[in-house]
């Protein structure tokens, strides 16, 4: 009886083992993921992760996040030991409606082409800051958005022709809230907000129309700095929670600074922050000053988003690239986790694009992988002044919708052999 039972049980167990063993073997041989990133440190604010995690990608989407994913499960395994894995970063303030017109942003050579700058600094999404308006957005879409690998979103300028220069961009009769809101409704997958940027007068009609368009379309309003006729206090008072003030740390004639002569943050700025108005860096060529940023950060006004204000005249200045701007804020005291949190998930929330900016399973696989370099680095502001820092984010690998689009040191490549 005993023996019989044993005789029965043994082969049974054996077959059970064989059955499951083959099953597991088949799964692993099937290589369920296209790419697995192993041995990296994941910082994914939306999912509350700041720890070592492996990340797998299948069909352009995140397929698995776990402490350990077996290499056999992937067609390709990329070892990112010692590196930081982040959701692909979002630059919420760029000018990328590049074209042939001289000395012009909309369809002109003052704008730049996004792919030239994005992937090499870990950015997978840019938001154009109102370079186009309702009259030329479709041209912008055809000539740039549709031919770029970078995801390009946009704020629509309340001026019908966008940033076409003066006097056209200040023509109140071409600021139409209904048509602006209608175009946003027509292109919800691209258009994330309304922008008011260039108006020299004191008449509040342009600002009010931009707000009206933003209300009609239920999107945020982006307020640029070239509005010298309006006081900063008046602008902030009109802005709703979720609206975005650009060029936060700027110290130029066109916009009052946020810091007073005693290095104190203005009370109206503090009040707006408490009320939920968002503050973007919009570094640009002239938009970032240590004499504003350093006192502001000390008094708690850290940026909500890290817009670079990328364009032809900022690209080679103290701005340089998105990773450099983040490193600059780290040199001013912000933590790595804080800058990556703001530059991914918080920016996605600010532009109401909550499908990006995180690495949840099933989310699009837009991923940035950074090395945190140690050394002696310098960071420059728009006044031509420098601070020193000890760390620099360097982009090692960028993945857009599951494809490796930038690989600085060949982490994803195989060693060359002379054969």
């Amino acid at each position: 009886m005993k023996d019989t039972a044993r005789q029965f049980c043994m082969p049974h167990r054996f077959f059970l083992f064989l059955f499951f063993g083959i099953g597991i073997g088949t799964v692993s041989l099937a290589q369920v993921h296209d790419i697995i990133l192993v041995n990296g440190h994941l910082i994914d604010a939306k999912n509350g992760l700041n720890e070592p995690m492996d990340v797998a990608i299948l069909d352009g989407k995140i397929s698995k996040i776990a402490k350990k994913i077996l290499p056999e499960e992937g067609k390709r395994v990329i070892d990112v030991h010692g590196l930081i894995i982040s959701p692909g970063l979002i630059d919420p303030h760029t000018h990328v409606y590049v074209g042939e017109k001289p000395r012009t942003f909309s369809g002109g050579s003052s704008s730049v082409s996004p792919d030239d700058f994005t992937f090499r600094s870990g950015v997978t999404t840019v938001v154009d800051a109102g370079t186009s308006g309702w009259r030329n957005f479709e041209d912008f879409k055809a000539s740039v958005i549709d031919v770029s690998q970078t995801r390009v979103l946009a704020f629509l300028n309340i001026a019908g022709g966008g940033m076409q220069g003066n006097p056209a961009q200040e023509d109140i009769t071409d600021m139409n809230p209904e048509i602006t809101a209608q175009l946003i409704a027509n292109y919800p997958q691209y258009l994330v907000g309304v922008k008011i940027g260039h108006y020299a007068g004191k008449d509040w009609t342009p600002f009010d129309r931009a707000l009206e368009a933003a209300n009609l379309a239920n999107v945020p309003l982006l307020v640029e700095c070239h509005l010298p006729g309006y006081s900063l206090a008046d602008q902030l008072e009109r802005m709703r929670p979720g609206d975005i003030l650009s060029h936060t740390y700027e110290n130029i004639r066109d916009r009052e600074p946020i810091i007073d002569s005693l290095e104190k943050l203005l009370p109206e700025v503090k009040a707006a922050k408490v009320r939920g108005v968002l503050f973007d860096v919009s570094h640009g060529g002239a938009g970032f000053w240590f004499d504003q940023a350093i006192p502001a950060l000390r008094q708690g006004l850290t940026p909500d988003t890290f817009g670079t204000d990328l364009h032809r005249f900022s690209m080679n200045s103290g701005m340089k690239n998105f990773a450099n701007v983040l490193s600059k804020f780290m040199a001013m005291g912000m933590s790595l986790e804080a800058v990556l949190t703001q530059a991914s998930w918080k920016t996605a929330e600010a532009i109401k694009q909550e499908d990006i900016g995180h690495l949840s399973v099933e989310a699009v696989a837009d991923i940035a992988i950074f090395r945190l370099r140690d050394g002696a680095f310098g960071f420059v502001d728009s006044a031509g002044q420098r601070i020193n820092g000890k760390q620099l984010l360097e982009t090692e690998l960028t993945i857009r919708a599951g494809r490796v689009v930038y690989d600085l040191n060949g982490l994803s490549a195989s060693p060359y052999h002379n054969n």
Partner: protein
Amino acid sequence: MLHFNTIYKGTVQLVLTGAFIFLNAVSSSLSAQEIDILLKGGHVIDPKNGIDAVMDVGIANRKIHQVAANIPANQAKQVIDVTGLYVTPGLIDMHVHVFHGTEDMSYIADGHTSLPPDGFTFRSGVTTVVDAGSSGWRNFRLFKDQTIDRSQTRILAFLNIVGTGMYGRFEEQDVSDMNPTMTAHMITRLFPEVLVGIKSAHFWGGFTQVDLAVEAGTLANVPVMVDFGEHQPPNSIEDLFMKHLRPGDIFTHTYSYGPANRETVVNEDLQVKPFIFEAQKRGIIFDVGHGGGAFSFRQAIPSLQQGFLPDVISSDLHKDSMNGAFKDMANLLSKFMNMGMSLSDVILRSTWKPAQVLSREDLGHLSVGTEADIAVFSLREGKFGFQDIRRTKIEGTQKLEAELTIRAGRIMWDLNGISAPHWETELGKK
């Protein structure tokens, strides 16, 4: 009389005081203000002038003013400490595509595959690029108006033998639009300052296009650059070098590997073909033109090991190469260093050598009196990887990083703010 004397004395005093002030001003301008920018303490590599040593470089009036050891700091308005860094002539990238535009039907001529140069050049130490035939005589003026005249980078160009340049692979086959006379006229009569040669590329037939390009090159007395690789089966490159090209003409994409439609310089046994050495001796110029598909270690490494070096190291910068294995000129030069070339050798092949090939001997060196185009590099030590277009990589320990780039005496790029004061110095806090 007394009165007169007093006036006289006073006048003399005034004149003397004036002269003293004037002389003082002159002497101070000679000592303290003579040099606008002084790069102090760097290691200068200037192959044309045979300099490979620690030297100071003074810039005045946008030109190289002095290159010498220990130029006193008090002779300069601005002193930049470049100790531990390498100071070289601004790089010349001899093969790029920068005729950027939004013409739907086109790819490189006025199209999306080209890109505006300034976002790539200064951040990798380049001050001059040479567009490799993106435009032809029919659309060069548009290119000049749209890109060349608006860029801070110096842009020279090879004119395509095809009238419409690189509009489309299809249009590039039109032999009836390859006009040596018009091409030569545009170079010699209209734009001799900008047009430095002729490009032949992307042709599916035999030697017809190359021969027409050489005819134009002879008429205009400029070199021809050939991209010779879309023939099935491949045309003979030995015939190209020995029978069709002239000494001084340029073969680009030297290390390309695609044996089905392009004859390679290295054979399947990884040996450099003997006639390649002969061709180089004959004066054929071999250009890297890395690009998105034209650089393979299986070609480059055996070549370097067997003593066949590229004459010119260039990028073939365009939309489809920028984010691939190429990345930027500093990365490309580093790749060659990690394959065994010396720093001074890669600098030679990206400064003075291309200047000679293009007969632009005003460029590519730091001689006194030349326009001050300068690159300052740090040489990072560490563990780096360098790739080819077949997704294989080599490891390396050195990498050039562009710290400071000066174009015609103006600072265009300053990676770490070495030319900037610390922000608190203005406030007196430091």
